[in-house]
């Protein structure tokens, strides 16, 4: 699995990693995933722990806790802005839903729109528990269930969007949506921890913060396992899958992988959180671990995007053979001349 020189024919523009989707789509995938993950975790937290800290703003009741745990749709909406920012003609962004029959971009547009609208509605209802909105109504629970479904769909969609690209072997696997889903849950739970850290919102509720941190650590471990499976399977899947994994692990992108994904996303957060658990929840340590984990989540998407190499075409395989023959022939002529 060591680094090998890429064949000159394979090293042409067409077979180098794709450069169409770069930082901006990575931010979009990351924010959409993290927002969706934090929403799922937030709703479960609300169902099972019921954290609540109501204050009064201009005579209206305002629940601080809900603002912290239901902010997922805001992140997803923010991420969607990056999708629009990446378009060639931004004012035409509404056209992006015209072909949901076959296009995952169009399907994603619809999934994200429904999730953002429903999530924002539930966020408003949760932070302003006004009597006129009937906050205890059964219908709100149904709406929450639907929102969870769309949140999970959003998290999975970020992976499916890439998986739908059949010509890039690194992306064309069921493990990618799973990897992005687990990453969405780990970064999402960490986003909730960070947003409530130091405020005492979750710490005052019996063991909520501890349970959330434990859940986040489990997600990180699962993410590590899925990442290993993803890379090892892709390495064996196709020649360009192998090239992509090599590029990420030993090639130009090795700093991004080992530094950004492995160290920032897995090793440092685990070590810091381990130390923090011995020092009775040291807030600065948890905060640093959280920030690093969130950065790691972003680099994971960026790394996967940047390492996507397209399948080799039969005609380029022919070129490779022809190239080798010519080099051999010219090499022998050169030797004779000498």
């Amino acid at each position, binding site marked *: 699995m060591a680094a090998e020189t890429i064949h000159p024919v394979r090293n042409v523009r067409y077979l180098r990693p*794709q450069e169409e989707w770069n930082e901006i789509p990575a931010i979009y995938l990351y924010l959409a995933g993290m927002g969706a993950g934090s929403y799922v975790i937030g709703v479960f937290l609300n169902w099972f722990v019921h954290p609540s800290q109501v204050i009064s703003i201009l005579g209206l009741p305002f629940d601080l806790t809900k603002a912290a745990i239901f902010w997922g749709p805001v992140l997803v909406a923010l991420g969607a802005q990056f999708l629009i920012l990446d378009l060639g003609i931004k004012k035409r962004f509404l056209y992006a839903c*015209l072909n949901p029959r076959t296009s995952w971009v169009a399907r994603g547009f619809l999934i994200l729109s429904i999730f953002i609208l429903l999530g924002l509605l539930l966020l408003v209802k949760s932070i302003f528990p006004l009597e006129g909105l009937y906050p205890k109504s059964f219908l709100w629970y149904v709406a929450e269930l639907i929102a969870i479904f769309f949140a999970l769909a959003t998290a999975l969609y970020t992976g499916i969007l890439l998986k739908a690209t059949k010509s890039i072997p690194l992306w064309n696997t069921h493990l990618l949506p799973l990897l992005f889903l687990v990453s969405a849950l780990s970064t999402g739970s960490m986003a909730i921890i960070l947003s409530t850290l130091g405020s005492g919102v979750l710490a005052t509720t019996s063991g909520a913060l501890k349970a959330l941190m434990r859940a986040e650590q489990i997600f990180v471990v699962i993410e590590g396992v899925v990442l290993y499976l993803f890379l090892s399977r892709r390495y064996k899947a196709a020649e360009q899958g192998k090239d992509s994994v090599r590029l990420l692990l030993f090639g130009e992108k090795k700093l991004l992988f080992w530094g950004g994904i492995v160290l920032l996303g897995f090793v440092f957060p685990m070590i810091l959180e381990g130390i923090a658990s011995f020092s009775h929840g040291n807030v600065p340590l948890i905060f640093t671990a959280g920030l690093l984990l969130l950065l790691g989540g972003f680099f994971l998407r960026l790394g996967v995007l940047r390492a996507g190499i397209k399948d080799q075409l039969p005609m380029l395989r022919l*070129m490779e053979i022809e190239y080798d023959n010519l080099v051999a022939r010219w090499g022998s002529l050169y030797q004779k001349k000498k």
Partner: protein
Amino acid sequence: MEGQQKVLVVDHQKCTGCRLCELVCSVYHTGASNPSRARIKVVKWEHVGIYLPMICNHCEKAYCVEVCPTKACHREPENNNRVVIDRNLCIGCRTCIIACPFGHPFFDLQERVTVKCDFCDGDPKCVVFCEPKAVTYVDADMVQMPKKRDAANKFIASIKQVRE
């Protein structure tokens, strides 16, 4: 379908790498003599003398059509079954570029949309101007004819050798 479907065929062994096809393509479609805006690209390995013109294959199962979120990229069965991009519908998401295994549709930085080969509405300029005839526009069922002819000629030559 009216008439015989025609396709572009590349014979890389005839290509000299002059890139005139890129130039005329760019002039015809954009009015600018800027090869980076052409719908055909010649990939070169100069030191061994290999030149490969890359063109759109207007695939039967076109991934670019499948992934386009706006239906801007569509097939025109009535028009030589070609796959074209409607620039008034394209949002410039570049999904088609990523999906195409041939790396074909190109993002036009000036127009901010994705563009691709449209056979120049039935008279491909790359074919007209290609001196060594490395790019040809032939009936789809004639694509293999030169190879078949070559094989037949070799067969005849070997039979002659045996007889002598």
